[in-house]
């Protein structure tokens, strides 16, 4: 990113809590299977202010049917919106209050649950229950103060498990798992800072020891604007290390859209509302997309974008309004669109281009967009294209975007407004008593830096190791495995180096359940194998192998001292001449073959001792 780019960014962190569900006593666990038990539609309703929320209206225009699976182990009639909610889970609220206290926030005296209208089906009620628990707090990140605007305790949404043309199937196991939502102020100024802030908030959350761990249990939203643009939100990023990339790419997109708006402001432009059927122009076209659309009795429809030539895809791909139009079109269920800046290509030839231009009465200053689909769908897609094209002179459009694994994002829906909130009447307000506050403030967990200090003093880690341990979230499991100095060092190597390497190699250590990690260190303590074996053992286990199978597969069955001595004696004997020549100096060179033969079967130090002994015996 060039140094001249200024932007304003704030993030929201959503962290699942390790408690029961927020409004019932279901376990907050995910289920592997589910069977659809009902299908419903949702309608947007006016919120308290009487206005319909634009995001809700946009969703409902899709007119989807939502199917719901409700696995009995992890969901109940409350999740299905068939029974009113119970009171708020006390543990979850305690964690939210504790976190608020830890970030110096004002704890709300009386907590009021709200319904946030969300009609994408991810909640069968058509809303998410959410309440503000704390506000106006702050944290320090690398010496800079970052404001924590709000801390909310809300319900997680249901999981999408299947999707087809007109329907989406959700599983309700994830619905209503408590989430703490933490919103920072617009204080972030560099892409890296977005990640640093998220890391810091993550470490404080984990310090409560009551949050869920693993993939999907913490998600980030990024809000960004630059001078002259409007706010956009990238919602639901799961990979922390990608945050800087998302920020960077989004800022570039804002700059690009502003540039396009500048270009358009200097041109005579107009976007017609009419959509023209130009199917006949493509009768003999060899384009796969066109042919397949026509064979399914589809139509080729087109819209005119007068004065838009070169901004759909121009300046060597730096202007990409075409991609924006395509993303809008795809929300109507079409696979894509063609626009004039990318043609001729994809089997559409110059001849077709000329005919289209002629038919639409366009000049080279103009652009057009085509869609080849069933007529109704194509029309809806092009209407979305027209809507987006009309917004282009305004630069950046307020919207919510989905993060993609490559660090870019795509349009998902308009940014919701405040109109979507109204009081949740089934949950009475919760007065936070002085007694409860005293209890919260009297039992605050250690802050991350205090944990770091303890890791240094109690386990002999150096400061850098301790910081990394906390930052990467291994402090808890570390303390549970590090029973003595020796295992502490083995555990530190495992979490700080082996796991990092594994991540880099693409074997995610997050896949290893905590129970197994603890069991491996139990085995180690029992002398079932030596600490040198840990690294290969965890790599094997991460693939889904059980510990016992991994041990036997890697030939790690422990070896008695006598067996080891025999083996080492054999190695020394083979190199008798060398040993006699070098005397005790042969210990070093011989460690190589010894380790090769015995790695993981006995401890390295023990190996060295036995080797020294055998060499002494010989000379």
């Amino acid at each position, binding site marked *: 990113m060039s140094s001249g780019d200024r932007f304003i960014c704030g993030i929201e962190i959503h962290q699942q809590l390790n408690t029961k569900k927020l409004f019932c006593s279901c376990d907050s666990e995910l289920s592997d299977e589910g069977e659809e038990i009902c*299908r419903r539609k949702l309608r947007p*309703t006016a919120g*308290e202010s*009487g206005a319909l929320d634009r995001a809700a209206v946009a969703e409902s225009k899709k007119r989807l049917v939502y199917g719901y699976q409700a696995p009995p182990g992890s969901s109940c009639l409350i999740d299905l919106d*068939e029974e009113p909610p119970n009171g708020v889970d006390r543990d979850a609220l305690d964690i939210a209050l504790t976190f608020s206290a830890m970030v110096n926030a004002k704890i709300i*005296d*009386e907590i009021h649950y709200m319904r946030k209208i969300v009609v994408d089906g991810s909640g069968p009620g*058509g809303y998410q229950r959410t309440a*503000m628990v704390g506000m106006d707090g702050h944290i320090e990140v690398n010496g800079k103060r970052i404001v924590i605007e709000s801390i909310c305790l809300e319900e997680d949404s249901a999981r999408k498990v299947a999707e087809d043309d007109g329907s989406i199937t959700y599983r309700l196991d994830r619905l209503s798992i408590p989430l703490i939502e933490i919103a920072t102020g617009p204080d972030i100024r560099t892409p890296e800072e977005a990640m640093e802030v998220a890391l810091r908030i993550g470490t404080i959350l984990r310090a409560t020891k009551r949050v869920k761990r693993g993939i999907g249990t913490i998600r980030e939203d990024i809000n960004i604007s630059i001078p002259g643009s409007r706010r956009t939100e990238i919602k639901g990023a799961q990979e922390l290390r990608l945050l800087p990339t998302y920020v960077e790419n989004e800022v570039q997109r804002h700059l690009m859209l502003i540039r396009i708006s500048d270009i358009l402001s200097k041109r005579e432009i107009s976007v017609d509302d009419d959509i023209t059927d130009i199917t006949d122009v493509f009768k003999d076209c060899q384009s796969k997309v066109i042919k397949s659309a026509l064979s399914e009795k589809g139509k080729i429809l087109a819209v005119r974008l007068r004065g838009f030539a070169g901004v759909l895809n121009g300046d060597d791909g730096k202007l990409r309004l075409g991609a924006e139009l395509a993303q809008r079109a795809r929300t109507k269920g079409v696979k894509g669109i063609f626009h004039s800046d990318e043609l001729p290509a994809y089997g559409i030839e110059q001849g077709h281009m000329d005919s289209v231009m002629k038919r639409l009465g366009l000049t080279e200053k103009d652009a057009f967009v085509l869609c080849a689909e069933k007529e109704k769908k194509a029309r809806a897609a092009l209407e979305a294209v027209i809507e987006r094209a009309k917004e282009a002179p305004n630069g950046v459009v307020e919207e919510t975007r989905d993060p993609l694994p490559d660090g870019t994002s795509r349009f998902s829906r308009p940014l919701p407004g405040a109109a979507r909130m109204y009081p949740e*009447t089934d949950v009475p307000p919760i007065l936070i008593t002085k007694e409860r506050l005293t209890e919260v403030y009297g039992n605050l967990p250690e802050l991350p830096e205090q944990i770091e200090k303890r890791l240094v003093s109690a386990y002999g880690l150096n400061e850098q190791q301790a910081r990394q341990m906390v930052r990467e979230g291994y402090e808890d499991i570390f303390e549970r495995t590090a029973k003595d100095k020796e295992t502490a060092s083995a555990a530190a190597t495992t979490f700080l180096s082996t796991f990092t390497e594994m991540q880099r190699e693409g074997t995610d250590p997050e896949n290893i359940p905590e129970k197994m990690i603890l069991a491996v260190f139990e085995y180690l303590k029992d002398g079932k194998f030596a600490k040198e074996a840990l690294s290969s053992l965890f790599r094997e286990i991460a693939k889904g192998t059980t510990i016992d199978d991994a041990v036997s597969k890697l030939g790690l069955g422990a070896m008695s001292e006598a067996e080891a001595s025999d083996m080492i004696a054999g190695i020394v004997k083979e190199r008798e001449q060398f040993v006699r020549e070098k005397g005790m100096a042969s210990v070093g060179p011989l460690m190589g073959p010894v380790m090769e033969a015995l790695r993981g079967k006995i401890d390295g130090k023990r190996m060295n001792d036995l080797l020294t002994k055998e060499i002494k015996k010989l000379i």
Partner: protein
Amino acid sequence: MINIERLQRDGNMRYSKELSKMLDAAGAKDGCKISLTTDGREHIGVLMPNASADPDVIVIKLKNGYHVGLRVSAGASVKVLEQPIVRTAERKARVPKKGLPDLVLIGTGGTIGSQANTETGAMAAGMATELLLDVAPEAAGIANIRTRDAASVFSENMSVEHWQELAKTVAEELNGGAAGVIISHGTDTIGYTAAALSFMLTELSAPVVLVGSQRSTDRPSSDAPGNLMASVRFCLSGTPGVYVIMQDTMSDDSFAVHRGTRVRKMHTSRRDAFRSINAVPVAHIDAPGNITFKDEVPAPSKVTKAVTKMCQEVVLLQFYPGMEPSLFRDVIMRSKGAVIAGSGLGHVSEGMETLLKEAAANGTIVVMTSQCLNGPTGMNVYDTGRRLQEAGVIPVMDMLPETAYVKLMWALANSKNVAETMRTKLSFEMGERRTVDVVW
């Protein structure tokens, strides 16, 4: 929707004296945008009607939409930043379309006629019936629907007078040319009202459909739109009779048409709470509006006639082990009619048997139903049953206790031979046969 006018009228009565004084001095009324500084922090938001139990807490709506309750400490200060915004939603009058049948929608309140009330933090039945039509805009495409507000109560507050008023209104509308009447009603007692109308409307020219919802209309998942549309569609079938139409599965695309005398709310909260008891639903309706009839329906009469007199000196009692006759003696002896939901086939304890005999001899009409709900009374099977019958207790087969209660009120007011009327089928309220396809 905030009703600013009402909120302002209520003033700051709910707060402590000090807080009330502070708000009054600042001119801070509900709906004002205020700045509150307390404990060294400033909070800006719109003052909400207070739903707090703590008189020192005010509730404000922050810019981000959240409501927060803030305790106002002694040294706090309040400033009004903006006066309330009064929103007046513009409503276009509905223009009747030529060629569409005329229906009437009568509102009585209930969840289907409710919206969230920010004041009490609970639901209030206070929505104009006209607004209810907004939740099912498709209805305007198939019928011209005129609305009438009859009541605005939760159904536990429906009274016999309400039933009488409704019956008269229905007769007036149908005789005035309406092709059908839909009554929106709270679900708790919708069955009682349906039974009452079934007996009161002795002759009926067109459909009368009672409809409710288990989720209020302010929710995107409300069952009101679907139930309402199914009701409108059923009305267009012209089937005379009094019916209750509600969703019959957890999905929102399947609806049952229940006979008004056979329907019962069998779950407190599910959308498919309603069941026909001892009978199959008269018809099933799918989302596009296809109606499949499953049982017989009456022929239409030329005019609709409402016979609305009711005797209110009737009680409905459930028998239970340990029921102490002395506690009920006065109640039963003073009543002109008593419906007992007996155990099993229609039994009571010896002590209660003695009391019922005495009451019957004294002129009280005693009617026996079963608390099993499913299945008929069978008072010839055991001695208790036989003795009760000898004493004049009238078994009414598989009639629902609530239906028997309503029928007895009507019979006492309108029949010369009440016992005979109770044994006679008037509106499909009882039957001799129950086939295996009757769900229980």
